[in-house]
């Protein structure tokens, strides 16, 4: 176990329909290592297994075989409870379609991970941190707006702030700019890069956009469930 690494995947395979006639292997032995505070891209054509890989890393699905170590913790033996706990504390999620809770305003959406974990912060502390995060992503005037009242770019900023609420060492972003115009996409990308550099948070960004991928420290290209790594710098 190497504490220098935030994420280590060793020979990770994922098959669907195990035991049935139509067993399909989607990921054929993936090895990935992410350093702390790294900024990486995961690219690949549709159907290459990107989303599946991200779900495995996000602990939303379990690998069929292989080892997955997050923040120094081997996940293969963990219970559902412990996985949920680890997911809550070590991982931040940014989805393509932001996925904010429509019934809550921006501030409450950012506070939500802290509200879920009642041990985390007091309500006052959580609110102070959420406000600071929203201000950091440039939304100091939108604390009390509902997601429906915000533009796509602003919604994605709220989602980024939410992903940072629990100070996770690793943020997983699934096509964070896929739904935005070029200008907003660039803004969001710069914002993530800035957070990465200022707060030493590692990012793994799934993207179709080769230009964005080229601006990351390293790129993992997934083709038909096999990995081809390119290092940019």
């Amino acid at each position, binding site marked *: 176990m190497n504490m220098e690494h935030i994420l280590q995947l060793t020979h990770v395979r994922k098959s669907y329909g195990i035991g049935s006639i139509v067993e399909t292997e989607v990921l054929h032995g993936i090895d990935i290592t992410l350093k702390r505070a790294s900024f990486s891209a995961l690219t690949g054509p549709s159907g290459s297994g990107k989303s599946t890989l991200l779900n495995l890393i996000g602990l939303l699905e379990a690998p069929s075989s292989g080892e997955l170590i997050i923040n120094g913790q081997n996940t293969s033996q963990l219970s559902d409870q412990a996985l*949920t706990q680890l997911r*809550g504390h070590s991982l931040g999620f940014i989805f393509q379609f932001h*996925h904010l*809770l*429509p*019934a809550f305003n921006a501030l409450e959406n950012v506070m939500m991970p802290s509200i879920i*974990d009642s041990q985390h912060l*007091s309500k006052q502390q*959580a609110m102070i941190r959420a406000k600071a995060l929203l201000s950091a992503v440039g939304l100091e005037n939108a604390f009390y707006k509902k997601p429906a009242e915000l533009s796509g770019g602003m919604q994605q900023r709220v989602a980024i702030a939410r992903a940072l609420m629990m100070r996770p060492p690793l943020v997983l972003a699934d096509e964070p700019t896929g739904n935005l115009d070029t200008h907003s996409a660039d803004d969001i990308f710069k914002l993530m890069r800035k957070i990465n550099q200022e707060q030493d948070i590692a990012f793994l960004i799934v993207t179709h956009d080769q230009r964005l991928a080229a601006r990351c420290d390293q790129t993992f290209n997934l083709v038909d469930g096999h990995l081809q790594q390119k290092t940019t710098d």
Partner: protein
Amino acid sequence: MTLNFEWLLALRFLREGRMQSLLILAGVTGGVAVIIFLTQLINQLQGSIIDRVLSSQAHIVIRPAEESALRLMSDAHIAANIQPRGQRLRSIDQWESIAQLVRNTPGISAVSPVASGPAFARHNLASKSVALVGMIPNDYRQVVKMNKYMIKGEFNLTGDQTIIGKDLANDLGVSQGDRIQILTDSGTQQTLTIVALFDLNNKDLNKRWVFTTLRMSQSLLNIPGGVSNIDLTVDDLFGAKPLAQRLSAQTGLLVESWMETNSGLLNALSNQTVTNNLIRVFIVIIVALGITSVLVVSVVQKQKEIGILRAMGAKRGQVMRIFLWQGAIFGALGSLMGASLSFALLTLFSNVYKAPDGSTLFAAQLDPNLVIMATCVAMIVGVLSALLPARRAARMDPVQAIRS
């Protein structure tokens, strides 16, 4: 963290699905209101029916054992046709010691010896068949609250005085202060002065009952020093039957409670209670199904949010409790609103529906115990109804949920 996640989400989701929440809340409110309203109505109506029936009746009456024909020979080979004996008017043997025994029996609050039998009341050319009731006014008032029913004079008499009903007074053409003649089949005849008139809200009794002193009836009915029956009042109305059976076994006399003399009424009341319970059970089932179906729909609608919450670290138990809370909220809020609605209904009904004499049939009262019980039941039913949708939400695969 003072802010409870499950509670917050439960309330916010309810507010978000406003229309759905309001509709099911209205359903629960209606259900609880009907249950409370029906229960209060039936309890009160049954109470007032029993009250009315028993107001002119003793709870328990002790009479002499019936005389039966005895067979001389007990040879089974002789076919005998035994005619039932006619029952003559007799006194209870040793009635004073029996009255004393009954007075000392726990659970009995009043004892009134009565000498009662058939007679004719005459005035001028009018003659009516009546029932003589000879009693001691102070004792009798404890059994039948005659003071309530007096329309002229007081329920008190001595010597050759009598108290009759207003309908008999009409039939005979007499009033307070007039004199009537009483004639019995023993041939005894006596002139009595009317000192008071009563109205028992029962025409038959108003025409038939003629009160005299115990001694006067004893002599008119030719049972000197005897009484035909002993009337009793008990503390526990519905314990009258077993008490009567015990007294009968103790004394060997014929002891009947109001529950036997009014078995038809009791039957009707218990049928009513069964029907009421059936209605309640069905309402509870319908309300529960309503809550379940609304929450099932809500879980499907909130699929994506549930997935996001799970991705952010919400545990299965937390997701489940969101929906259990919603069930409990429906139950609690619905029953409080239902209680208010039923109170409004009771007030309305008590003003609209009145007894023929204008008095209220029932009061607009809410039994606090009933409201507390209804609230508890509604909350439990709410949580149980939410169980199925809540489990479904908790088991949802976050990946599928987010993609949907």
